[in-house]
């Protein structure tokens, strides 16, 4: 059965710290991996990764996919309290499948 595992489940840091969130997957077919940020509302799209080794960057956030290791990391530098959220990793298997399969998420808390 396809699955996505995120680690850590929960993380508490101080403002200004750098964090690395991990996502590993075991899937039959792989097309893309997506990262979302969820505060007390809808998941907000961050990145979609399809190619291994190519970093995607948006401000203080960046992410990279390693297809050999079947994993991805999401880095957040110079964290701010507004980064506090659940970060969800999801994969899309492609083919006739349209759904995203999500991991359980990492709860990030950034303290002032």
């Amino acid at each position, binding site marked *: 059965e396809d699955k996505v595992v995120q680690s850590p489940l929960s993380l508490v840091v101080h403002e200004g710290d750098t964090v690395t969130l991990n996502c590993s997957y075991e899937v039959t077919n792989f097309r893309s991996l997506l990262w979302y940020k969820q505060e007390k509302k*809808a998941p907000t799209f961050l990145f979609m990764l399809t190619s291994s080794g190519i970093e995607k960057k948006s401000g203080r956030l960046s992410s990279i996919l390693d297809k050999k290791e079947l994993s991805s990391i999401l880095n957040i530098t110079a964290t701010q309290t507004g980064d506090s959220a659940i970060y969800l990793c999801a994969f899309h298997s492609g083919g*006739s499948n*349209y*759904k995203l399969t*999500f991991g359980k998420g990492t709860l990030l808390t950034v303290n002032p």
Partner: protein
Amino acid sequence: AAGVIQSPRHLIKEKRETATLKCYPIPRHDTVYWYQQGPGQDPQFLISFYEKMQSDKGSIPDRFSAQQFSDYHSELNMSSLELGDSALYFCASSLAGPGEQYFGPGTRLTVT
């Protein structure tokens, strides 16, 4: 930029009643997805539509049905509601099939 619109935002129903949730995708998006998220859970895929045809089906109960209309909006119809149906229901949309999925604000359904 216009986002996915969902209505209503909150809904309270009694057991065995019916509910209809509506979703208006981002303009020009032709693919719509429905997800259910229980408390402390990750989003679970229910069903998706591409160009008004069902494109994929997940763990959607037989009591639920959905469709996509000619203007690409979608409705999720839920009958014989059960207490366990209480959850956040997200709609997401994308352009030209599976890809970057953008989520709406969700409808919080409470069944009493």
